[in-house]
């Protein structure tokens, strides 16, 4: 069993991310389960979602308390809660930030210490450039694929194309690819962050001018 | 069939006169093959105007629909006096579910008929004033708002008669009921707007809203015909005398209903899509006292401790109705 917890904020597509991750794992032949944390959180409130991969039928329904990996969609969460709580020894983490892995480690004692187990990626900058909206889920899943190898980049892109259409699918797919490449390129450079305001360049990037607005009608806002 | 009023001058009613009409203009009740939707053997009180009205409404609807009619009935007198297992006085497909939900049950019936290709079968929901204006109003309003293909008929006897004459939201001011006794500083029901459901129905801008009374059954019949000529949500509000609850003589049910219209307290009109289309003019205006004095529920307004102030307020209600619904003939003095 490989268990992933995604932390983010309402409106950031956290639930969609766990769904995409589950689809990617499912495409790779795993048994999967995606559970949004259920709440009446409105836009901006911390939201968490869980994804499980297994080679056997998944029976359990408990929330994930000891994740093998965490994905942090919103860097501001690093300062407000222990997003690495319960992370197993040798676990993985993908953080949406311009800071370097070692900068994150310095501030967060719970972050994975092993070299190559913590990836930071400027996902906001990437999606601003390629998607046109500050919804970093797809980029972080690309980074997750590069970091953990639990899913392939191809599966992530296919999942995106299965859930979205047109420019939204294209922007998300491209963001995932760029973030994937970012993690590959920065492997072993754990003191290296991203420059401010400059997105990684992709040679044939699409225009963001006509992108439709939200990437996902995110279902984590549940009305009582 | 055109509605033809044949005044029968000896009694002042409009209900007789079939023999004076051409056959095609006669009431459904003139014919042996009428549906007798609510047939004999039921347990209504002597002089029950609700039973009379229900029979006229449904027999007319049965004729109009060629027998393709289903009825949802709210809990109330009409339901209780007509069915007690194993007997039923209904000769039509009829269902009683609950007090508050006749309009919704009718919606469900209409929906299934429509999706299964039986849209020619029409649906009527019916209930008393409590089941309509009080406990059933949410379901009724929902049915109106969705414009479901249902005719809702309210038989308004102005209180909870089934449970022993308690006040309802449609009980008129000053009326004595079991829960508004004629004692204290303000005997009887308190003064106020009450709920005049036809106006609430009109606010939904449904295709057809009409009022009628058992004093003019030809008019009632004509309004059912008009209602059934429309599709969508329709509402028919029938004032029905209740000898038990009102304290009237059983023989006076028609007379009392007629006086309710002739004094101006009960307006008879038709409205389409929220707009008043026509009103039945008062033939000979009478003082409200003529109507009230025949009913023991208003007895405390008269006699030794006569309540002139209350009577004056009731007169003003009649005046207001006459203005609002334009109830006097052209040229008549208000």
């Amino acid at each position, binding site marked *: 069993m490989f268990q992933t917890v995604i932390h983010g904020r309402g409106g950031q597509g956290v639930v969609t991310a*766990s*769904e995409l991750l*589950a689809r990617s794992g*499912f495409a790779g032949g795993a048994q*999967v*389960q*995606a*559970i*949004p944390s*259920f*709440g*009446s959180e409105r836009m901006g409130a911390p939201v968490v979602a869980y994804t499980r991969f297994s080679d056997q039928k*998944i*029976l*359990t*329904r*408990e*929330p994930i*308390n000891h994740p093998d990996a965490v994905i942090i969609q919103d860097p501001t969460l690093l300062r407000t809660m222990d997003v690495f709580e319960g992370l197993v020894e040798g676990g993985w983490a993908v953080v949406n930030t311009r800071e370097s892995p070692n900068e994150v480690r310095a501030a967060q004692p719970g972050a994975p210490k092993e070299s190559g187990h913590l990836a930071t990626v400027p996902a906001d900058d990437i999606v601003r450039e390629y998607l046109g909206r500050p919804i970093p889920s797809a980029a972080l899943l690309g980074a997750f694929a590069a970091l953990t190898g639990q899913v392939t980049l191809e599966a992530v892109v296919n999942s995106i194309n299965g859930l979205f259409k047109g420019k939204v699918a294209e922007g998300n797919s491209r963001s995932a690819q760029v973030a994937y490449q970012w993690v590959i390129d920065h492997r072993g450079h754990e003191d290296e962050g991203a420059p401010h305001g400059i997105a990684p360049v992709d040679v044939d990037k699409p225009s963001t001018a006509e992108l439709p607005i939200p990437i996902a009608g995110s*279902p984590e806002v*549940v*009305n*009582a | 069939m055109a509605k033809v009023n044949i005044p029968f001058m000896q009694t002042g009613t409009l209900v007789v006169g079939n023999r004076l009409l051409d056959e095609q203009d006669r009431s459904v009740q003139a014919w042996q093959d009428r549906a007798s939707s609510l047939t004999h053997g039921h347990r209504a009180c002597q002089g029950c105007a609700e039973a009379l009205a229900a029979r006229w409404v449904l027999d007319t609807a049965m004729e109009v629909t060629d*027998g*393709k009619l*289903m009825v949802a*009935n709210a809990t109330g007198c009409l*339901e*209780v006096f007509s*069915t*007690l*297992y*194993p007997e*039923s006085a*209904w*000769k*039509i*497909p*009829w*269902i*009683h*579910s*609950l007090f*508050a*939900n006749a309009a*919704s*049950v*009718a*919606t*469900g*019936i209409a*929906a*299934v008929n429509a*999706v*299964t290709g039986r849209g020619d079968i029409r649906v009527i929901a019916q209930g008393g004033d409590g089941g309509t204006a009080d406990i059933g109003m*949410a*379901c009724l*309003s*929902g049915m109106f708002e*969705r414009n479901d293909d249902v005719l809702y008929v309210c038989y308004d006897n102005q209180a909870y008669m089934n449970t022993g004459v308690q006040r309802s939201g449609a009980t008129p001011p000053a009326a004595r009921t079991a829960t508004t006794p004629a004692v204290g500083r303000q005997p009887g029901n308190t003064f106020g707007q009450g709920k005049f459901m036809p106006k609430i129905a009109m606010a939904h801008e449904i295709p057809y809203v009409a009022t009628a009374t058992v004093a003019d059954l030809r008019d009632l019949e004509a309004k059912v015909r008009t209602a059934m000529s429309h599709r969508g949500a329709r509402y028919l509000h029938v004032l029905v005398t209740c000898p038990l609850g009102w304290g009237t003589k059983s023989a006076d049910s028609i007379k009392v209903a007629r006086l309710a219209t002739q004094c101006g307290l009960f307006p008879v009109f038709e409205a389409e899509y929220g707009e008043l289309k026509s009103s039945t003019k008062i033939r000979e205006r009478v003082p409200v006292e003529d109507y009230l004095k025949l009913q023991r529920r208003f007895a405390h307004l008269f006699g030794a401790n006569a309540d002139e102030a209350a009577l004056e307020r009731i007169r003003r209600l009649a005046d207001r109705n006459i203005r609002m619904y334009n109830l006097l003939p052209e040229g008549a003095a208000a």
Partner: protein
Amino acid sequence: MPELLEGSQAIARAVALCRPSVVCAYPISPQTHIVEALSGLVRTGKLANCDYINVESEFAAMSVSIGASAAGGRVYTATASQGLLYMTEAIYNASGLKLPIVMTVANRAIGAPINIWNDQSDSLSQRDSGWLQLYAVDNQEALDLHIIAYKIAEELSLPIMVCMDGFVLTHASDVVEIPTQEQVDAFLPPIKPLEKLDIAEPRSMGMMAGPDVFTETKYMAHQVMFHANDVIKRVTREFEEAFGRPSGKPVRVWGPDGEDRPARQGEIAVIGMGSVMGTMQAVAPTLWDRGVRTRLITLGSYRPFPATSVRQAIGAADRVVVLDRALTLGVGGVLSFDVRRSMARLGIPLHSVVCGLGGRPITEQSLAETLTRGKAGDLGELEFMDLKTELVGKVG
């Protein structure tokens, strides 16, 4: 072909495969995704010959369902929690009128305090409503149960609640197998109502019954519930033959040794309904290795209550632990109450473990600790799992 689907979407697809004539619902969390999906299926014509009716309350939703079912239609609705209570009067009426309505209950707590999260207080409050109540362990079973429920409901002419844990199942994405239309059509024939409103044969439905016949009416309804036990067993067997999945069994017995047999001496019989039994199954093998041997008795049917099968499954267990997802105040777990009745004079101790109220997560660790204590004889008659005693003031 297996698909990854949110539970609610799977339910909507399964309901659509049953070809209802009317879907009528009022939105309430956590039922909303189901009815949203169905409204879309109707609007796009993917669910043809069906009307989706938006109503003004749950009371109206059940009332429209009553009318539609009385007119001979196959009817679907769904609700939860406060909504279920709001339609309670009509719920009793539907079963009294013997209308085969199928309703999903996306199980949720009842306020006050208002709480949108999962437990089973809502459906269990309808214990005496005369409806059948079937409970799903996972989303595959939940979707299968809807197909099974229509078949049972229409055979018995009785309404059925399909209960699934709100959020835990309704909002979770799982791998499920959605049957084909041909499979469902072959299993579930068009509805043939026992009684309906019919212009060719006018009848009165919902008549008043006096003291002379009311007892007999209820006695007959009571007998039908016993018959329902057999019908559920047969229909779920037919379902398994047709679809290859053992969904909806009234009682399923399982142990980490893989044997389907009653509990023996030295074992704890663990009884529960819904998704908690999935988590229990996940933790049971570890417990077994540690010497805490459990036999899991999962109830797929709560009404009718399969008392005989439960009694048999308990067998010679040392003790019975009931995982109660609803509480009757001052008494204890609701399910325990029924289980206790079914094990009269067995002389086996029963421990009611109230857990997961109002969405409190039921963790494998807590279940393991509870059963370890059970093995050691440390469990009381009534326990509140994970009770935060520091939050509890002095009572009384």
